[in-house]
């Protein structure tokens, strides 16, 4: 058992990918559905923890044993229900991180008002993708490779651990190319909790607890992670 839970509200064939990928992560995945068909489908697809409840009932939601740092992912196919559920979850668990899927700018706005921490607009990301395909085909291909789990390239978040060789080193003084990884940016805890792109021109220093975002081959990334002692 892991310490963190991810609750996925809503399940269908289209959401099978996200459920499968989440299952591989160090999280306890719990599927919560409100109809029999989804319940049967989820069971058929081999998910162990599937809960079938009436999602409009706050009492039942309260009984779900949701902790403050759990992920609540609202992907109901009915968008009215998705907004309603986000609102209910936010009122019951104000500290939990709620992620939601939207299909229009109007829904996005409503989800934001309802308290979702992060909203992914299904069509906006696709529209961006089409635009990028037309204008930046090489960049789009790379991003696609970075995102696809089968590819050797990826993004990685690495936190600088205690006793790391990177501690107290200025960003400019460290040669990432030696490790064949590229530093995209970081969160410099000393300065703020904002993400800073490495091209923004600020002079940062690596310290314990900072989070780096790097891209590279999976092997190189792992080797680099080992090098800095993470």
């Amino acid at each position, binding site marked *: 058992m892991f310490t963190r839970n*991810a609750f996925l509200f809503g399940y269908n064939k*289209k*959401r099978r*990918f*996200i459920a499968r*990928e*989440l299952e591989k*992560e160090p999280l306890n995945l719990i599927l919560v559905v409100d109809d029999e068909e989804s319940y049967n489908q989820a069971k058929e697809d081999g998910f162990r923890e599937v809960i079938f409840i009436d999602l409009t009932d706050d009492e039942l939601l309260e009984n779900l044993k949701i902790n403050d740092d759990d*992920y609540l*992912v609202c*992907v109901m196919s009915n968008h009215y229900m998705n907004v309603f559920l986000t609102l209910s979850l936010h009122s019951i668990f104000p500290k939990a991180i709620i*992620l939601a*899927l939207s*299909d*229009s*700018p109007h829904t996005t706005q409503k989800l934001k008002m309802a308290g979702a921490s*992060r909203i*992914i*607009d*299904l*069509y*906006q*990301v*696709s*529209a*961006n*993708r*089409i*635009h*990028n*395909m*037309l204008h*930046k*085909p*090489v*960049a789009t291909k*790379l*991003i696609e490779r*970075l*995102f*696809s789990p089968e590819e050797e*390239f990826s*993004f*990685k*978040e690495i936190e600088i651990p205690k006793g790391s060789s990177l501690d107290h080193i200025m960003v400019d003084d460290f040669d990432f*190319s030696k490790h*064949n990884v*590229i530093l*995209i*940016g970081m*969160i410099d805890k000393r300065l703020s909790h904002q*993400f800073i*792109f490495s*091209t*923004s*021109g600020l002079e940062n220093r690596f310290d314990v607890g900072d989070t780096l*975002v790097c*891209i*590279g*081959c999976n092997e190189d990334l792992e080797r680099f992670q080992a090098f800095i002692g993470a």
Partner: protein
Amino acid sequence: MLKKLLTQFAFFLHTSKFYNRSKKRASDFLLNSDYLYKKYFDIFMILLIISSVAILVYEVKNPVPVWVDFFDIYLVTTIFSLEYLARIWVHNCWHSEVVREYGDAKFLNKKFNLWSPTKKILRGKLSYMASPTAIIDLLAILPAYRPLRVLRIFVLFRVFKLLRYTKSINQFLGVLGSKKFELYTLLFLLVFITVTAGIAIYVFEEKSNDNINSLFDALYWALITISTVGYGDISPVTSEGRVVSMLIIITGIAMISFVTSVIVSSFSEKLTELKENRLVEEINKEEDFMIICGYGQMTRMFLRHYEHEYAKRYIIIEKDKERVDEAIKEGYRAIHEDASRYDVIAKFNTDHAQVTLLALTNSDVANIYITLNAKAISKNIRVISRSSSERIAKKSRLAGADSVVMPSLIANRMLFAAITQPVMYKAVYAILTGQHLAQLDEVNSVYHQKMVGKSIKELRLKEQKLLPIGYESANNRAFIFNPSLDYKIEEGDILLLMGRHVSIEHFKKTYEEIGYVHA
């Protein structure tokens, strides 16, 4: 002997590249409204006509210089004559017909008769010469014949020639053409009533009315009255005549309102079609444009964010009339058509322009069909198709789609990244949505020649706060990640950089120089 020579000549023409190319070019200039340079030819002809008519009007009261007369008689007339002959020339093709019939005769072991195809072609050319537009063309040449001053008035036929070169007038006539039956019926009724009323007034008033001396006077009066113009130069004096007047005035009013309503209704029926044709014509003039099939949530989102970048270089094709109206209401350029039909996509200029087609309807089957349709028309059309799953995506690629977009997959991956790597998600989201803080952009060495031959180190990217992510090699189009600082950019390489919008734009400007674009 002559027959043999002529047949040989026909074969020579048939195989002569120069002759066929010339004829094709002439036909493009005269008839092909999609031809890029036709509009310049049309403008030139319109200017000639205007100058000719201006000379006619000026001449009435003022003496004109000799050179103006020379210009009017020789130059304008020569050009009009050449145009007239060229139109007869391109109307049909003698050599093709001869070659075809010769082939048929040989195949059937029959004796070849040269007169048969020649007769067919001559008949075609004669029937063209008898058409109203060709007659106008011919009459427009006549004013050059100076001994007969009356022929000067034929300069006005040059004004009629304008019809040829202005599309809107042609479209107006086309619309009226669609109501031929109604208009002919009305015309017949008008002639019938005018003649009947004219005869009636002639019979009633010929003796008592001083102004009516002939049947022509009576008919003239009838037409002036029925049209509600009523000059008043002739008016009935007997009671019978006045009754006839009253009757035809009422008929006249009814008829005028009927004609107006027929014309207005035919316009409102055709207006959408005309507007849509205009849109297609406009877009066909662009060198590169986009056809978006389907107006759903995805298209809406795409246009909301990027319409300004495509300005007038896109068109939406939607099958559902309600959605088309919705798109037009939003201010988008949409037409009501079915993108899966061959003729719908074929009317776009796919030969000369770079066309991108987005198949974004919410039906996978329709998207695949649209992809196949577009690829069947031209392999040059770049197709980006939407699909709901990996299986469908595979089929789309088989159908020829150059790229496939899977909204649910992209959203799933983003969602997954947002859960598992939230910091990275923010970074990627900023990059993906092209925020000014950080962009991932590519610099093509073909358009930025100055960087060719320079090493990455020499480009001094770090100083400009740019991060080289990699490059796509010109040799095998493979992507090389994290290039070494010593790598020298080759022509055709595409460099991938990350940085702020200003840095990237500055870099592009510094190295901008367009080189030879390899096919």
